[in-house]
């Protein structure tokens, strides 16, 4: 860590433009992360939130735009730099994407062995520590098909954390879960935020976003159209698009929003 870590952003994604099947999905989107930042992307479906997230670790290559890690611009055409970027930017998927043929412990250990070159024993030891951290110390030998959705997502989080990422991307981490399993995953994420893990998260859990986010970015039609702290954007009578969207979300799904929101 360099001395001026608090004023240099640890990661910047700048001026992303992305076309998919001829349609402009991202139109000049940027985001900058400092230590301890938890930024939440919200917006209607099709706004480009997931695309934006997947461009940041280059799972989708942006057609234009720059990715900076600290003060180094990542050359995504260089395989080594690309793998390095992905190692340092952990990702959690909506559908978990656990490796179905591996036990929980081997899911976590695989990249440690193959990417970090750790021995099998060391990798498993680290895997057990990470699984314990997400409360799954006793599930190490189980296969993904033997775990509940919430447990799968927590294994996925342990798998990402084992690579010591400097930042975590979460793409609707609770959307594929049964309602009663959402809580256990959010608890883990909240705990990470409390420990200062920088995160960019796409979510529709507005209450959660309000509680942990340092900034909310509201996206629509491939653009970030509003950006600010939850207090600013969701203040009573703020008349922002963000608040309007959250109210509609509440009306549609009955997600609990504090009273002053409802009157808006």
């Amino acid at each position, binding site marked *: 860590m360099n001395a001026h870590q608090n004023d240099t952003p640890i990661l910047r994604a700048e001026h992303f433009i992305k076309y998919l099947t001829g349609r402009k999905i991202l139109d000049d989107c940027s985001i900058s992360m400092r230590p301890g930042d938890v930024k939440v992307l919200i917006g209607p479906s099709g706004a480009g939130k997931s695309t934006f997230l997947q461009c940041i*670790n280059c*799972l989708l290559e942006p057609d234009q735009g720059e990715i900076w890690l600290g003060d180094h611009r990542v050359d995504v055409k260089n*395989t080594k730099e690309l*793998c*390095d970027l*992905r*190692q340092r930017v*952990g*990702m959690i*998927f909506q*559908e*978990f*994407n*656990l*490796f*179905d*043929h591996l036990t929980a412990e081997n899911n976590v250990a*695989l*990249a440690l062995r*193959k*990417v970090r070159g750790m021995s099998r024993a060391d990798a498993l030891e680290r895997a057990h520590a990470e699984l314990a951290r997400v409360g799954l110390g006793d599930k190490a030998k*189980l*296969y*993904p*098909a*033997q775990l509940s959705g919430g447990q799968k997502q927590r294994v*996925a989080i342990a*798998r*990402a954390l084992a*690579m010591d990422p400097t930042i975590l991307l979460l793409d609707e981490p609770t959307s594929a879960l049964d309602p009663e399993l959402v809580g256990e995953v959010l608890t883990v994420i909240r705990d990470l935020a409390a420990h200062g893990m920088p995160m960019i998260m796409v979510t529709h859990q507005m209450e959660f976003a309000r509680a942990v986010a340092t900034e909310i970015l509201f996206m629509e039609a491939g653009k970030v159209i509003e950006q600010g702290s939850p207090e600013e954007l969701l203040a009573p009578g703020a008349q922002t698009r963000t608040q309007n969207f959250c109210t509609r979300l509440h009306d549609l799904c009955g997600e609990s929003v504090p009273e002053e929101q409802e009157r808006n």
Partner: protein
Amino acid sequence: MHILSTIIEAFPYILQGTLVTVVLVAGALTLGFCLGVPMAVTQVYAPRPFAMLLSFYVWFFRGVPVLLLLFLFYYGLFGLMGLEVGTIGASCIVLGMTSAAYQSQIFRGSIQSLPAGQFKAGRALGMTDLQTIRNVILPQALRLSIPGWSNEYSILLKDSAMCFALGTPEIMARTHFVASRTYEHLPLYITAGLIYFAITMAGVTLLRRLERKARIPGYSNSGM
């Protein structure tokens, strides 16, 4: 009885042919596997020109009878290339190359049936594409390929009878040799048929056992 004594007399001779058949099939399946896996991976992940080249290979070997391929290579191409491989070697290589074409399509189907998220997850952890293919994609795809592969085994075993046309001393060639001298066609060909049947069943049973053993815990294979 005369028929019985003919069979008993010919049996060790035909049994030696069985050994040749087993070697042929094992060699061809191995060659087909070693070529088929990289071919499938290339067809799915490599740039278009490479994939097209392999499509041409598959199209050629699947589009021409095995018997013609055997003649083409043994009497034609191997001679041109100055290759001295003998009948068993030639049969093995031709059957292997043909099997590679079929096996590559079995593996390709399995790879493409995996959710795209598996590959993404490997990449997202910083693994290279090759590492992801080797450690995430293939272990799962090969499991899914076992039933199709068992099919390929049983078809290849019977295709190997075609090698008799090159004079490869396998089951069919030896049976034919004995039959043409003793005129006991019926009992001898029934014996050969039973041998083929036994080898098929043994292999299929073994693969079925492998399939059960390799099944990922927690997954049902009942289809429901």
